[in-house]
């Protein structure tokens, strides 16, 4: 009798927990997108909005990472992903991007403190939920990212000579620099405004 009660409890808790996890993802996916947040005081280009991820405000990061590619906000991946990335800079997606030890340490600290699993801003918790403990190296490999971009055909990005890759966030997301990935501000070069 006792075992039956405990068993039932475990099963019920499991179902409740997975329900919560799924609920959490969709809450972030649909609930917080482009929500008005006048009281927050963020003056974004597209009116007063909460950022989808906290914008980069660290000059060293902007300079060291942003001189070669879009300076991806730390809130787009969990700390474990950033650590893996920082440990493998000698083969950074095919290129050597090694830093001196001092700079590497400062950037690592910044990435850790602002990683998706260490902040509660905008979409970061939703991204973490979608990972279920995994730590991909590419933002485009997160389930969250793939779900958000699943409707976009190859001709608009990969085969679009003006875009070429999903890694160039700011080419289509006009507010990407400010951490705004609002669907309404998407402009795909050569394709016009994105309507789904």
């Amino acid at each position: 009798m006792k075992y039956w009660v405990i068993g039932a409890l475990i099963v019920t808790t499991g179902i409740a927990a997975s329900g919560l996890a799924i609920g959490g993802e969709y809450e972030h996916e649909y609930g917080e997108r482009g929500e008005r947040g006048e009281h927050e005081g963020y003056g974004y280009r597209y009116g007063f909005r909460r950022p989808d991820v906290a914008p980069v405000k660290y000059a060293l990061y902007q300079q060291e990472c942003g001189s070669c590619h879009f300076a991806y906000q730390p809130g787009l991946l969990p700390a474990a992903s950033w650590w893996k990335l920082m440990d493998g800079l000698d083969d950074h997606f095919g290129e050597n991007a090694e830093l001196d030890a001092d700079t590497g340490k400062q950037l690592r600290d910044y990435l850790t403190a602002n990683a998706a699993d260490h902040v509660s801003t905008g979409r970061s918790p939703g991204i973490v939920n979608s990972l279920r403990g995994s730590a991909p190296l590419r933002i485009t490999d997160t389930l969250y990212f793939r779900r958000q971009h699943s409707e976009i055909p190859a001709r608009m990005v990969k085969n679009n000579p003006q875009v070429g890759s999903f890694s160039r966030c700011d080419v289509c997301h006009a507010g990407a620099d400010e951490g705004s990935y609002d669907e309404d501000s998407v402009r795909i070069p050569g394709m016009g405004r994105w309507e789904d």
Partner: protein
Amino acid sequence: MMKIPVLITALLVGATSVGLHAESVTEVQNTYLARGAGPFVYDSGESLWNSRIYKERRCPDCHGPDLSQSGEHKRTHKPIEAMAPSVTPARYTDVRKVEKWFKRNCKWTLGRECTAQEKGDLLEYLKRF
């Protein structure tokens, strides 16, 4: 009558700007001299620049055959500004930045870090453009 002063001015401006660009490169080279390297040889720099000693890679693969033109990374297709100091002088004004890129690119292209002598030689070659 008017043409001669104009020509002289043009020559002077030209000479000064070439001198200035080469000067910042020389300052970087001086840091390698201070480490016991030198004198730096144009031909050695040119031959290292064009050598293929690791994974079939050469500097011009990404920097392009013409140093006064921009190049493109052969793996990532990232655009790379021209190496010629006369075209992209800002490349050579920060010793730390030069060192950072020598470390990355010597390892990527040659499979090892470059010595102070090799860096000085490469700059001796690059600064003529």
